């Protein structure tokens, strides 16, 4: 990469960039998450697996600052998103399941505009580099995103995340709807971000993709984190074991 320096995230001082300690989340009287403990270091990819309704999205909402924990604590790079949402949101980039972009703008304009709203101004070169690093073909930079596929949209969103140089990345079902080739490409991108010390939390259904790229995999079951498996050795995970574990709970 020509301008690798610009793409590397800000140095972090805390041990865990994404940190949940005994976090309890509830909507009204209904408790969604019980005593969640999640600690993700810089340069670590954590995949959170779980059935629908297990509390994956709620976990993301806690970090995003859309929901405050009833008890326990949530920190993003040491900042509480519940009390300081604006500060906390400078620490992460978020990529929703269906990447929402401004349809009437081009890929480049989207990144430029959203960077601007995040209080950041970058040169055209930096933006082009980010988009290229995210794997978007240069021919698509100046096309309106209304004709983009899901994979292309995601690349724009990752380009934005790269340009923002944030210490953390929150991903919601990033590989759903992507073909195997696009998934592999996406995982390659995540590895690149890991090299740049970004802490990544992805919530997903996609066991294979998680096993392919994650450093740790957590299983969420009815609001409780029931098991954590770390990657080991050359094969990283025993996929058959994971699958049995995953399918068994569903």
């Amino acid at each position, binding site marked *: 990469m020509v301008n690798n320096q610009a793409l590397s995230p800000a140095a972090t001082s805390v041990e865990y960039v994404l940190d949940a300690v005994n976090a309890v989340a509830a909507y009204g009287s209904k408790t969604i998450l019980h005593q969640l403990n999640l600690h993700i270091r810089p340069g670590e990819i954590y995949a959170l697996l779980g059935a629908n309704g297990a509390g994956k999205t709620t976990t993301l*909402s806690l970090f995003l600052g859309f929901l405050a924990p009833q008890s326990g604590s949530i920190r993003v790079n040491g900042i509480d998103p519940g009390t300081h949402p604006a500060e906390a949101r400078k620490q992460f980039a978020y990529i*929703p399941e269906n990447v929402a972009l401004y349809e*009437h703008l081009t890929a480049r304009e989207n990144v430029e505009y959203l960077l601007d709203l995040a209080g950041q101004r970058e040169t055209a070169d930096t933006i082009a580099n980010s988009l290229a690093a995210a794997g978007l073909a240069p021919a698509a930079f100046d096309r309106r995103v209304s004709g983009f596929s899901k994979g292309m949209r995601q690349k724009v969103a990752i380009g934005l995340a790269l340009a923002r140089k944030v210490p953390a990345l929150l991903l919601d079902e990033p590989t759903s709807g992507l073909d195997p080739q696009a998934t592999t490409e996406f995982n390659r991108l995540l590895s690149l971000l890991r090299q740049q010390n970004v802490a990544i939390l992805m919530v997903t259904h996609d066991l294979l993709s998680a096993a392919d790229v994650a450093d740790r995999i957590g299983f969420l079951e009815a609001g409780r984190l029931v098991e954590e498996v770390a990657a080991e050795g050359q094969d990283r995970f025993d996929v058959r074991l994971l699958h049995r574990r995953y399918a068994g709970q569903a």
Partner: protein
Amino acid sequence: MMKIVLRIAREECRSLLRNHVAVLGTLLLTVLMLIASLNAWEHQRNSAAEIARYQTQSNHEFESQPDRHPHRMAHYGHFLFRPLNALAAFDPGISAYTGNTLFLEAHRQNSANFGDVRQSSLLLRFGQLTPAFVLQVLAPLLLVFVGFSGIARERESGTLRLLLTQGVSSQQLVLGKLAALSAFTGLILLPAVLMLGVLALTRESAWGMSLVLIAGYAVWLLLWSLMVVFISSLCQRSRDALLGLLAIWVVAIILLPRWVPDLANAAISLPTRFENEITIQKEYLALGDSHNPNDPKFAEFRDQVLKQYGVSRIEDLPVNFKGLVGMEGERKASALFNRYAKKAFDLQTAQNGFVDDFAWLSPLFALKRLSMSAAGTDLQNFRSFLEQGEQYRYNLVQGLNKLQTEKLSYVDDTTKGKENRIDRSNWQTFPEFSFKPSSSWSTLKTALPALGTLVLWVMLLGALTLLQSLRLARAIK
């Protein structure tokens, strides 16, 4: 903070520029505005010239009447033509619905005739293409089309969530959209501002009234911008926002303005001219025949005059008693006519007040009041023309009666078959009619409360929008 708001506004403007509906709509509106302005302006100049020509012709015809009995002249009468205010080019108000030609004669108060309403097909009822119509009816609709998706679209597509996760606050977003729509509003208003400015610069209209109109319409469009942003932030889907806003537009601008006047008509009904004339005629006859100096109804008056001059027979009076009776009769008759005219106008004013109270349901009523009163084309102004016309009629008839009193002898005047004429030069001693429009102060007294109502609407919608923007952040989970 402000920087982000402006950035959002700039982006919204770019999206408007890339939106075919917005661009085409604005072009169409501007073209209509230009056509309306030019047409109204030319129409106004033509009718001003026509009215001036007719008034001159009528003045000339009056002055060039031959030697005559003064009372014949009082029956010959005079024609007055209602001059159009320059700002009628902007908002003609009721001009097409009132007559502009007033015939003045002795013992009678006529209606103003030859209004467009009876001279055109029902096509007129579709409305008139004037700058005021464009801004009152079409501009809010364009704002709806242009702005309905402003926030609903961000919510629907998920970009709202994205923005919030980037540290943009929902208030900033709402303010940004509002700023963009307000800038667009300025663009819509620009031709009208130019037109009003030109009218004021060429001294055809008063600066004050032009400014009141500009302020009124600016607040009106701001009100609609707020309404659009508010409803857009309220709805989950842009389609709901569009349908909701269209429904509000139809009710506030098409339905209520037609329905409420009907309610007013039913609540406060006006007498017909027919029955008014019968009752007036009855009371008028009861006053006595002022053509006949021996009418017993004038006996008391006769005694009083005789006493005043210290003579015992009317033939001994130094003045023509027949003329005096004419004056006394006209005085009483005029008071009678004015009483009925006032009653009818007061009822109409009450009807208008009834309608104005509905400004809390549709702010269009307040805007119309402001616009028509500032443009000098409301009922108040028309009433003022009729009242000044009546005053002129009274002075004219009494002036002629005075000539009869002073220049003709009683004996000559009461001799049957005798031609009594006075010199034609007398006809030239009457001043010409000139209409004095309502003073700025009395106009402002009507226009400013209406402006106040509009401002209150803006404040109410502003508060609602602010509250909703706070809820917006919480609605995203």
